[in-house]
């Protein structure tokens, strides 16, 4: 029983930690792009990479202040969104998907390549750039604090606090935008671009705005991740993270303000709970070693998430917050 409580506590910490914030911010961005505007961005992680490395390179390599690094990261994300959007947003939705997925993989390979080593430090990545930020914490960051049976370092707590504030502000921004006439145009574009054009709206500009906004959220997510881990390594930014963020979004409910946030928390909770829980069962001998060894747990937990998603799509296709009537309209 104590073991179970412990597993729950560890999973709860994971659902509140910086990784959950990372996925929440990525998913908020994808929600703006895919959920509301209907843009298929399959390379959200590229924006996160630029955000994380924007800080890392600015601070570690160029010796700039931390906040300048944040600006560099955001600016880089905006530029990437514009570059991706300019040629593809006039075309069918699939072209943006192709361009983004290729960019995400290409940028990661570029950042880890030998020729980029002088700037990005190649596969080893950069570290020691978050000192200025951690120093801002109003409490002692070298101490460890116990919260609900889990132990947090002061730095972790600070990153999580600022991160969740970012998530709340971001959700508020999305909420304000989507209840405004701007949001109405964006949602209409998801439904039918030509109808919106025929009513005098410049569809291209709205799509670009949605793409840039979503990209900025991605960059913020990457920053939280880089600051949380204290290092920026290109291979951390695998494109699988984009799809995990999509999973979080669909879990929570697309085109809902809190869908991506709650989805990310649940995703991280399930992953961590499955991990700790399965290891516990194996070490207690409840699951025989020859059926499932503890080395397989890391993989099997994703299988469980996949299974959960499948069940969700069968029994609750709208996600946790979605409106079933709305989702079923597509099935007609």
């Amino acid at each position, binding site marked *: 029983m104590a073991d179970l409580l412990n597993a729950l506590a560890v999973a709860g910490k994971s659902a509140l930690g910086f990784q959950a914030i990372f996925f929440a911010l990525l998913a908020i961005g994808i929600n703006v792009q895919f959920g509301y505007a209907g843009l298929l961005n399959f390379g959200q992680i590229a924006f996160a990479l630029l955000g994380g490395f924007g800080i890392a390179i600015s601070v570690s390599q160029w010796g700039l202040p931390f906040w300048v690094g944040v600006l560099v990261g955001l600016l880089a994300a905006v530029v990437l969104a514009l570059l991706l959007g300019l040629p593809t947003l006039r075309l069918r939705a699939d072209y943006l998907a192709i361009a983004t997925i290729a960019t995400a993989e290409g940028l990661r390979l570029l950042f880890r390549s030998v020729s980029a080593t002088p700037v990005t430090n190649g596969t080893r990545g950069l570290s020691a750039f978050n000192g200025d930020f951690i120093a801002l914490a109003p409490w002692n960051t070298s101490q460890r604090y116990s919260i609900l049976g889990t132990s947090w370092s002061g730095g972790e707590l600070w990153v999580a606090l600022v991160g969740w504030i970012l998530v709340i502000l971001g959700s508020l*921004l999305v909420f*304000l*935008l989507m209840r*405004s*006439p*701007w*949001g*109405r*145009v964006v*949602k*209409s574009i*998801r*439904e*039918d671009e*030509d*109808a*919106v*054009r*025929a*009513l*005098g*709206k*410049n*569809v291209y500009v709205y799509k670009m*705005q949605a793409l840039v906004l979503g990209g900025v959220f991605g960059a913020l997510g990457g920053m939280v991740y880089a600051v949380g881990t204290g290092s920026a390594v290109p291979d951390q930014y695998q494109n699988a993270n984009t799809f995990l963020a999509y999973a979080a979004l669909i879990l929570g409910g697309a085109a809902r303000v809190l869908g991506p946030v709650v989805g990310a928390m649940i995703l991280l909770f399930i992953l961590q709970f499955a991990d700790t829980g399965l290891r516990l069962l194996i070490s207690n001998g409840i699951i025989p070693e020859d059926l499932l060894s503890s080395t397989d747990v890391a993989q099997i937990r994703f299988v469980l998430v996949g299974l959960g998603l499948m069940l969700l799509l069968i029994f609750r296709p709208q996600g946790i917050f979605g409106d079933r*009537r*709305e989702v079923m*309209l*597509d099935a*007609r």
Partner: protein
Amino acid sequence: MPADPIPHGATAAGAGTTGGAPQRLAQAALRDLPWEVGVAKPDAAVVVDGITRTFGGLTAVSVDHLEIQRGGITGLIGPNGAGKTTLFNLLTGFDQPDTGTWSFNGRSLGKLAPHQVARLGVVRTFQLTKALSRLTVLQNMLLGAQGQRGESFLRALVPGTWRAQEKANTEKAMELLRRFKLDAKKDDFAGTLSGGQRKLLEMARALMSDPQVVMLDEPMAGVNPALTQSLLGHVKDLREEGMTVIFVEHDMDVVRDISDWVVVMAAGKVIAEGPPESISQNRAVVDAYLGAHHDAPLTVEDEDRVLAEVEAQIAREESRDEPGSSDSSEGTGR
């Protein structure tokens, strides 16, 4: 002139007609015009000059000169593939022509994007209705309003800048919805509406933009007869409010009933234009729809000649078949 057998069911809701007999100024103005292709109209809202559009080797549209009378209902008819929808797409910026110019109120519309054309007051509907399924009926309507301050990204974040305008637009939308009898559905998703209701919604949404020219692409297609009458009433209302209506339609009864002027297209060209009653007598139109010589009686000499031709052909083919090839089926069926 066609009598008006339909009581204006939809008009009764109060469309703002100024009482008395409906104005049919356009019809009066067009009465004395010659029935010929490219004739100049007394007060043209839309003028088309030398537009061509080819898709590969196919010339979809090739219109030398066409004027559309302001404040009238112009019916655009023609067999399938005549280029009617392509012409619509060209006029509204959804497609770019290979050559040609066209203007609205004297302002050239060439090179304008669809949304720019729409902002000038030329609004269209689509052959395949484009209701925005996952938005409510009311949201669909509000999208149609022009010049919304809250549609700019930054101002959207400050509700104070757009709330009053939104309220006014909502009132206007509700008024239109009442007129189109959709007000009870205002909070339903547009995707749950029936096909006919979607047509109504699309027309109402177009009216939210206070257009000067309304281009309706097959507004009655797939709509049951009762609703067709209601839609017809609404189209007539548009004219009475002073809008210029251009519509594509296949149902000749509908065209005869409401058009002031009819333009007939076939194979990309305008082959005839004139008041509706002139069209059914027009040789070129009948030929385009039914094929040339479909009803010309054969004289005895003609019959003999055709018979001789066919016999000669059969004889030719038989002699050609003799060496052994067996494909003799072509051409003998005439």
